Structure formats: C-alpha cells, structure tokens
C-alpha cells in the first residue's frame, strides 16, 4: 500500500487499535470461528446428507419463500409509506413517522406473541379472516406476516432519505419537458429510487432469513410444514446434534453473507455510476 497514511498527530492510535482488535476477537471472532472449526470436523458426505434431509429442505423452502414474500411485500409497503411520509402532510404524520421504527425497537418475542394472539382463530384479526376461510396463524402465511412486520422499516428507511434529497428541480424539469406527474414518477423518480428499494429489499430479506423470535409463536412449528430454519437449528441442538445444527447454520450464514455482499456491491455500483465526479 503505497498511499500516504494520514498524519497521526492525534494520540491514542496504538491504544484504540489494540483494544478494538482484542475486544472484537474475544467477543466476535473467536466465538464465530468455533462454528467453522466445527464444520471442518464433519466429512463432506456427512455435511451434505445433514443439510439435504427432507426436513431441512422443507425448512429452507419455507424460510426462503416466506422471507422472499415478506421482502417483496415490504418493497411495496415501504415505497408507499416512505412516499406518503415525505410528500404529504396530514394529522398524525409525526407519530407515524416515529412509529415506523417500532418493529426494530420492539423485542421480537413481544411481536411474535402479539401477532399470534391477533391472528389466532379467536383473535381480533383471526376471527374475521377465519370467516373468510383464511387461516393465518400456524401456517406459512403467518410466517410471512410476521416477517413482513419485522422487515417493514428497512425499505422505508432506505427510501426515505433518497426521496427527501431528490431536488424539486428535477421534477420541475420533467414537467417543463411535458411529463405528467405519473410520467415523472415512473420515468424520473422511480428509477432514482431503485437502488434504495433493492438495498432495502435485501436487508429485509436477510433479516427475515435469520429471524426467530417473532416467527416461532405464529408458525406452529410443524416439521416439514411450518418449521423455519432457525427453529430446525434449535431442534438439532436440543437433541445434542451439534454437527447437524452447525451444518445447517453454515448454510444459513452463507446465504445471508451473500445477500449482504450483494447489497455492498449494489451500493458501490450505483455510487460509481451516478455520483462519481470525473474531476473535470
């Protein structure tokens, strides 16, 4: 690395560098490495058969399917909520603006308990849905509902700042060129929001994949039907099947790391393409 290092006049470099790596290693790196070490103690065949049992495959299907559905729903809801919060003024707006973060702040178990009670057959929502022949609690629909709840803020908070920073000028320019409000939204505003929507989508999807607390109550936890991957890991652990738990955890971890890598690449790509100045 030939680039000049910034001057280190400010004191504390060695101390903070040492402490940061030490604490990071102790709290995060060493514990996490135990997962990888454990994986290496498995033979490839054992690993493969563990992560491809019918029960595991059903769990992946449910976790990925419900997370995908929830993340997609969040793209629609998130865009709607962000648009309304940024563009319109109406009574109660400030309260809603703060409340959007509730799914982040509310302990997941509370969310799980509450949603399950609301959507159960006799619950506030469940009784009406039941009358329509729709069952939510203890089905894969319930899993998707819970995951939509906890993922709601991701897209809103990703889109909102971008929407706020869009200059009024750009919309006005589109109007002077003849574009109607709808054409302006579709051709000028929406494309500018796509990177934020994608990154919100990916964050919500990654979070949903690993989510546990808000889902276990509403899912019903029936093997092969409503058992999510994190629950399967716990089940394996409770049977003292550390190898099985580790193998499935590695699959999950690989999935969420690739998703977060995708977000980072996306950020870099859109930044380089739209915001880079060629220093003219």
């Amino acid at each position: 690395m030939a680039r000049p290092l910034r001057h280190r006049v400010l004191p504390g470099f060695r101390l903070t560098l040492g402490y940061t790596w030490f604490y990071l290693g102790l709290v995060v790196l060493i514990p996490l490495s135990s997962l990888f070490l454990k994986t290496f103690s498995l033979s490839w065949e054992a690993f493969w058969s563990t992560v491809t049992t019918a029960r595991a495959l059903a769990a992946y299907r449910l976790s990925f399917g419900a997370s995908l559905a929830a993340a997609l729903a969040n793209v629609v809801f998130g865009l709607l909520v962000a648009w309304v919060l940024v563009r319109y003024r109406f009574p109660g707006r400030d309260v809603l603006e703060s409340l959007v973060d509730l799914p982040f702040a509310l302990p997941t178990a509370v969310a799980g308990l509450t949603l399950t009670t609301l959507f159960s057959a006799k619950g506030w929502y469940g009784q009406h849905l039941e009358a329509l022949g729709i069952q939510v609690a203890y089905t894969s629909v319930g899993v998707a509902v819970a995951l939509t709840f906890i993922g709601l803020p991701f897209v809103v908070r990703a889109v909102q700042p971008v929407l706020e920073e869009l200059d009024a000028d750009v919309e006005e320019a589109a109007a002077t060129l003849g574009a109607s409000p709808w054409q302006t939204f579709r051709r000028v505003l929406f494309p500018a929001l796509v990177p934020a929507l994608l990154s919100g989508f990916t964050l919500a999807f990654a979070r949903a994949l690993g989510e546990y607390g808000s889902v276990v109550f509403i899912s019903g936890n029936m093997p092969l039907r409503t058992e999510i991957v994190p629950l399967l890991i716990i089940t394996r652990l409770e049977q003292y099947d550390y190898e099985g738990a580790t193998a499935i955890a590695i699959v999950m971890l690989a999935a969420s790391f690739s998703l977060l890598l995708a977000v980072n690449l996306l950020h870099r790509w859109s930044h380089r393409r739209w915001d880079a100045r060629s220093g003219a």
Partner: protein
Amino acid sequence: MSIVVEQLARRFSPGGSPAVSEVSFQAPAGAITSLLGPSGAGKSTLLRLIAGLEIPDEGRVLIDGVDCTTMPVQQRGVGVVFQSYALFKHMTVRQNVAFGLEIRRVPKAEREARVEEMLRMVQLEHLGGRYPGQLSGGQRQRVAFARALAIRPRVLLLDEPFGALDTRVREELREWLHALHEQTRLTTLLVTHDQQEALEISQHVVVMSEGRVAQAASPAEVYDRPASPFVASFIGGASVLHGEVRAGRAAMGALSVAAPVAAREGEPVQAFVRPHDIKLARSLSDAAGASTALGRVERLKSVGGYVKVFLRLPTGDEVTVEVPRSEFDALGVVEGDSVRADVRSATVFVGDYSI
C-alpha cells in the same frame, strides 16, 4: 414569440410580503431579455411564474399573445434551464436530451436525429453515453441546454444558468450562449444577478428590486439613464453624493452639477457618480469649473490594470475613482494627499429617496 407579463403578483404566505408584485414588462420576440437584480429581488419567482411552475395570485402571462396564466406547465412549450441543471442522474446524456421527445411520442428515427443534432450544437456529441455524474459543471450546463432546446420550445427560460460555474467557464459559456442565440433566434429570458452578464449578452434588461420592476430598457439606456437611485447604485458601482438644490443646480459643498429642471430650491439631492466619470488632478489651484471638488486620498487599492482611489470629500461623502495604471503613475499620489476631482458626469435625483 414575445413574452408579455401584466400586473403579476405572487405572495408565498398569506399576509407576508409579496415575492413579486405589480410586475409588467415585455420580452421582445427573438431577443435575449435579462431579469437583473440582487438576490431576493423576485427574479426567479418571476421566471417560475412564466414557466408555469408557480401560479400567480394576480395578473397575466402571455406567450406569443396567448394567455397562458393558468395553463399547466406541460403544455406551455417552454424550455427551462435550471440553476442546478436538474439533470436526470440515472439517465445518460443522450437519454436526458431525448426525454422530452419521448414524452411527446416523437418517432424513434426522428428523435435520434434530433438528439444528435442537439448534442452537436452543444458540442457534446462524443459524451452522449456518459452519465451526468461523470461530466464537468460546464458540460452539465450544456446538457441542460440541449435537453431544453430539443423539444423546440417557444421560449427559452434560463435561471442563473452560469451561477454555479467558475469565472473562466462563465465567460466562455456567455460567448457560447451568444453564438447559440445568433443561431436559434429564440426568445430568451435570462435571470442573473451579474450586471456584466446582463449588459453584455442581452438586448433588453429588466432591473428588479424587492419584487418590482425598477427599470425595463435597453442595456445602454439602463446604464446611461438609470430610472431610479436604486438602478443608479446597483449598476456601475456608483458613489453617492448628498446635497441640496441651490440656484437650479445640485450642490454638494463646493461641488455642483446640473440638476433636473423641475427641482425646487432647497430640496435634498443625490448625485450618483461612476468610478470612471471622475478625473483626478494634482494641481489644487486650478479649481476652475463648478463640477470640481477637493478631496483627500483615504486609501489606494491596486486592481490589475487600474487603481481604485478612495476619496473623502469635504462634505463627508466618500467617492471611489478608478484610474488607469499609467495615468496613476503619472499622477503620483499617495495616501493622505489632497487632490482635485473633476466630475465629468453624474446622475442626479431630487427628493428624499431611500434606497
């Protein structure tokens, strides 16, 4: 395609002071008209009212004789270049220029030809595939022009188009705009706070102050015969001398200049003197003419090819004089010297104006 504005008024908050009021002027067809004034004078609001980005509370806007006061902006056929350029940053240069044509459903072949023509005109044909983020400020500015011109607008509205650029690029683009206008002969309205810019490239100047028109005339007229003390002081960096009407002349201490005919004896006057309308001389004895005063050199400031001399007159007023360097060297004055100032021309206003 003239632009006519009649009694236009717009206020942003009820009861607040109006951004624009009682504004009437005409922008002649085929000419560049400048809207000139300090920031906050209501120039941009006026431009937005004409573009249809704001709707006036009172008054009318006519483009080519057609009342379009309440016509939606999409239908006005105005080309607008925004101060911030307002380019669509997720579209390439070519896509930006094509946008208005696509909205108008211009057939593909014609559209592409038109876009290339526009890019040639703004000398960016080699950068059509770039994104705005990859261009310099001057290049972005030209993309904004190409985009506005592509739709064959009836009039061109420019909101401080060179405001965000550095001096050298500004001057280049000013030349470029002049040439472009020669080519298109499009009725153009240019909002600027830079008098140099307004006087240089426009055929008609509308000076604005506090939401009103202070004077609308040719550049020469505005410069030589300012209609109000505001215009006189805003344009040309004039110094103000205070005095009163005495014997039919505007007298400022020993110095006096011709006053308007209607002036009554004893009325207060203000005389505006441009920095190059005063000639300095060393010999104090030779105080012959009435339009001559003695002054003390308070400060000297060398600005490139000329020297700014700050003189204090016996009446207490301070005047700024610009002396070419060679002349200054011959004069050989230093700070603290007394010199003779001959006022060659001044604009006099009678009455208690406050600017």
